[in-house]
């Protein structure tokens, strides 16, 4: 149990969200009633704020906004539910439930997110309760998938070192579990759990968070070198598994990463987590909890866009965090150990794990699982789930791993992959296979430009250049976000696009291929034509002048097209 420390007085008025949380009686608000109101398919703003803590957002189909307004209809309100799968692992049974719910209540698709979770879009208010209950019956939940709490803990789904993976996965699950809110509101509202009057004593109800939870969302991810697919430096707490003689001995602790910023506000910036030390494996829960309480107590509760852990730390310095952490722990974290990352993408195709089981990593464009006329991906995966005896693992790059396939089953699975033409994407350029796009339009309320619906067609056109330049098999991470929130971790793309307005993007270059250097603004406000004109000479020059094994992100810096970003603090200059 953490003691409260006495804090320096917060500067500035608490933000409105702080009021909402405080008045919400541990995330209840008036959700129970407003979800019943039959005259609107939406809910009031205050309740929507709270709903996020329950893992769901009120959205509307933005394609229809203006036309419906004319038609005297309210916006096409619908709910998005984010289902947590700690470490991105789901059983075949759970996959089948997701698939079924997607068709029964949602828009018939599943979105595999950049944090290894499922999202369903287009759920109507009246189906929310049923949906969440059926999710719950499948032993999954959406609690704390969003909101000012710790989120889905990411974990490298690395199929090679399967035994390490299972150990690391075990810790990510433990972290998720330990850092989940304790309030009964979720059970009350969605699962008809009997009403309990939560005691006003924060210690009892929310021992870690307290009545107003965190100032902002909080994210933890665990990477297993050499693979940095979780983008460990984009996390509020990035944990780097340290292996000695193929044994997990502990974790390097990196703090204060985040991708979000606001156009035109240089006070906000993407930042990378910085390693402050090492802790033995079994201390990791304690360390994470204490770091969270530091952010809980010192984080900015007055200006939300300055409230992430990264700003708390940058305002006070790394030494301060380390000391504060050590104090709260009552012991000192050790010096960081060595590690080496080589990439942050996925490794496609069949590989055999050290447990002699097989794993197939398949390419899913922008993580959107659906059936099209040409391609019956969703049906195929359903059929596979029916016979699969291992697990499904969602990758941090929005892809999917059919993992722990026994020798016996492998043939069956291959046959189905064949039948439904599900591939590792070998037929695509390495560029496309290294692409991520966030959801953006039409569901995301914050989108300024297209992303998921647009990036594939932009890549079609870039591929033409790639082929001419002979770079088809060169991995170049390309990431597009519809707004500066950076849900695709665009600031870590060797080529990054961040939406400004419909059809217009800021173009960034120069992130490292391993996820340890941010990119930099190369050209502001460019549309497709200009993008292609800008990329063509760069790619040709890269093809001609690159050094052995030199990645595009490093090349554009060496060639002087952009300056290397050392810290988020100089991202803007």
């Amino acid at each position: 149990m953490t003691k409260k420390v006495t804090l320096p007085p917060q500067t500035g008025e608490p933000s409105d969200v702080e009021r909402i949380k405080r008045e919400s009686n541990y995330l209840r608000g008036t959700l129970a009633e407003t979800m019943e109101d039959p005259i609107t398919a939406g809910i009031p703003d205050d309740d929507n704020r709270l709903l996020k803590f329950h893992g769901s957002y009120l959205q509307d189909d933005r394609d229809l906004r203006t036309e419906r307004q004319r038609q005297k209809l309210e916006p096409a309100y619908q709910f998005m539910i984010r289902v947590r799968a700690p470490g991105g692992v789901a059983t075949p049974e759970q996959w089948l439930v997701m698939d079924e719910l997607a068709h029964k209540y949602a828009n018939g698709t599943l979105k595999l997110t950049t944090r290894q979770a499922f999202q369903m879009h287009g759920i109507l208010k009246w189906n929310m309760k049923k949906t969440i209950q059926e999710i719950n019956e499948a032993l999954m939940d959406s609690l704390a998938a969003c909101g000012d709490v710790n989120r889905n803990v990411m974990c490298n789904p690395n199929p090679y070192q399967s035994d390490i993976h299972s150990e690391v996965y075990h810790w990510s699950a433990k972290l998720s579990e330990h850092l989940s809110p304790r309030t009964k509101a979720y059970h009350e509202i969605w699962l008809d759990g009997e009403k309990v009057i939560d005691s006003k004593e924060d210690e009892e109800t929310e021992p870690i968070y307290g009545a107003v939870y965190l100032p902002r969302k909080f994210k933890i991810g665990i990477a297993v070198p050499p693979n940095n697919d979780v983008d460990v430096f984009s996390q509020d707490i990035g944990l780097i598994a340290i292996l000695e003689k193929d044994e997990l001995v502990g974790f390097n602790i990196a703090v204060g990463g985040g991708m979000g910023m606001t156009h035109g506000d240089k006070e906000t910036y993407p930042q990378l987590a910085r390693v402050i030390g090492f802790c033995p494996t079994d201390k990791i829960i304690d360390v994470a909890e204490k770091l969270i309480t530091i952010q809980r107590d010192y984080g900015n509760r007055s200006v939300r866009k300055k409230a992430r852990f990264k700003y708390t730390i940058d305002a006070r310095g790394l030494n301060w965090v380390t000391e504060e952490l050590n104090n709260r722990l009552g012991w000192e974290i050790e010096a960081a150990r060595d590690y080496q990352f080589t990439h942050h993408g996925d490794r496609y195709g069949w590989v055999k794990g050290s447990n002699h089981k097989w794993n197939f990593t398949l390419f899913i464009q922008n993580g959107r699982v659906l059936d099209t006329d040409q391609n019956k991906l969703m049906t195929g995966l359903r059929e596979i789930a029916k016979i699969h005896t291992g697990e499904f693992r969602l990758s941090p790059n929005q892809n999917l791993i059919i993992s722990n396939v026994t020798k016996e089953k492998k043939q069956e699975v291959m046959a189905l992959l064949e039948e439904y033409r599900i591939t590792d994407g070998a037929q695509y350029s390495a560029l496309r296979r290294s692409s991520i796009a966030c959801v953006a339009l039409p569901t995301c309320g914050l989108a300024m430009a297209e992303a998921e619906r647009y990036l594939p067609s932009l890549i079609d056109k870039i591929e033409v250049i790639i082929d001419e330049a002979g770079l088809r098999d060169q991995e170049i991470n390309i990431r597009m976000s519809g707004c500066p929130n950076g849900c695709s971790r665009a600031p870590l793309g060797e080529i990054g696009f961040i939406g400004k307005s419909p059809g217009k993007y800021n173009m960034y270059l120069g992130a490292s291929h391993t996820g340890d250097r941010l990119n930099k603004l190369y050209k502001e406000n460019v549309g497709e034509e200009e993008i292609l004109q800008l990329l063509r000479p760069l790619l040709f020059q890269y093809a001609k002048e690159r050094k052995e094994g030199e990645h595009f992100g490093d090349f554009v810096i060496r060639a002087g097209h952009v300056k290397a970003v050392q810290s988020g603090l100089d991202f803007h200059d």
Partner: protein
Amino acid sequence: MQLQVMNSPFNQEQVDLLNQLLPKLTAEQQLWLGGYISALHIKESAHPSGGVAVLEKPDVQTKIVSREVTILYGSQTGNGQHLAEELSKNLKAENFDVTLSAMNEFRPNALKKVEHLLMIVSTHGEGDPPDNAIPFYEYLHSRRAPELENLQFSVLSLGDSSYEFFCQTGKDFEKRLLELGAKPLVPRVDCDLDFDEPAQEWFKEVTSKLNELGESTPTVQSTSNHVAEINRTVYSRTNPFHAEVLENLNLNGRGSKKETRHLELSIEGSNLQYEPGDSIGIYPKNDPELVDALIAEMNWDAEESVTVNSQGDLRALREALISNFEITVLTKPLLQKASTLTSNPKLQKLLEEEDEETLKNYLYGRDLLDLVKDFAPWEGTANDFVAILRKIPARLYSIASSYEANPDEVHVTIGTVRYTAHERERFGVCSGECARRIKPGDTLPIYVQRNANFKLPDHPDTPIIMIGPGTGIAPFRSFLEEREEIGARGKSWLFFGDQHYTTDFLYQVEWQRWLKDGVLTRMDVAFSRDTDEKVYVQHKMLENSRDLFQWLEEGAVVYVCGDEKHMATDVHQTLVDIIETEGKMNSAEANDYLAQMQQQKRYQRDVY
């Protein structure tokens, strides 16, 4: 002050006439008129005479005739009422002592004293009397009905020959009155949808017959002509106003199986007025494509001129088929007339068929184009052919706006009728035209159709319950606009339903606003196709039966609008059930309770 029915002792015609005349008078003319009329009142006892008649030619000394005539009308959508009022006016002008009354406002046992009864009644439902004729109809057919030897009467029945029981109610009334010993004054006339001419004929008949009996020398011509003259400048069903379309949009969201158009029409400068609950009539045009197909099929000459009315007015065939004649409905009478124009024996055979079903089945979902294809070869000219066609009738639409809120506009809510029958996609004439051809800037010929049987309570504090699924919602938009405008404080409760919540919640944001502002107290919705088991408004009523009965007990007025066949009957039954259970009554008592409400105008329906 603009004269209105509300703020003057005059009825609508009179108001219209006066509003026409008064603004045109100079100050001195007005003075003179005022003096003249008050002077007239002194002679009144000796010279009872209709204001209108006098206004026409003040110098004429009209004959003194005093004969009693009672006009009773049963009317659902106002046609009959309209005619009754016109007849009454004409007869007053003829110095008859006229009692005009809706059947439900007439004390049945006063019938014994009546000598001359003129009855105008329409037929609704499946050959049923219009709502406001039901009590009187039942009284007459009950044992309590009196002997009526010294009653002379005639019936004008309104109907639509496309229905199986054509003008049934009129026929029933005549039959019954004869049984009770009454004598026919002039023969009954059954009017089809194009009832103007036959009705005028019947007016003449009864008027001259009554005059005969009253051995008076009337000034029929001059009067009616003169009235007609004035009428021409007054917009009415016979002289529709061409209203510009300001807005025409589909209220159903993308993905809906339905299309419901919201039309906003300008009535600026038309002098038209309406109240919540009234409807407008729209004279539609036939689909030019259908007309061309017909002309091609018959290889007629589109430009050939044909006679379009009994006055012998001529018009180019294509124009006439588009604007004047009904070509989308087949009726038995039509086929009978048509059979004289074809040498194809199949048509005769069809008409002589033993069982009616075969004919009915043929008529259903077919139009003139099918007919001419099925029974060629045809004889006779295009003129002969159009001569057998009915005039295209106006379509009625409940007004969805409040005159108080926007006096220069009238809004309607039109569900597009669209279906495929006999391998051809077909559209409703009027709804199809509005959905597919009418654009903002075009005009539609319209008139206001009063409906005294669907009115907001006199007192703004009276609670109201509105039940209007689908397009039945229309008048309630007008109700709430009105109540908001006049700041009514009475509670209000709206039941709405349709297929799908997301796409079919008509006028959703407006109800939301009215709920927020307290203009609407309560709203319950039922969307039938969102859930496995279908949910309709009546289910929502049942769910709230206690409150609903409570409202009834508090004197709430119940309004039902929309589909007649299913909705209205289910809702009616549901009301009975609710009253029965919540009021702890047996079904007979419950039915009385509702009948009571009907009597007190606390249960009003506008169904179609």
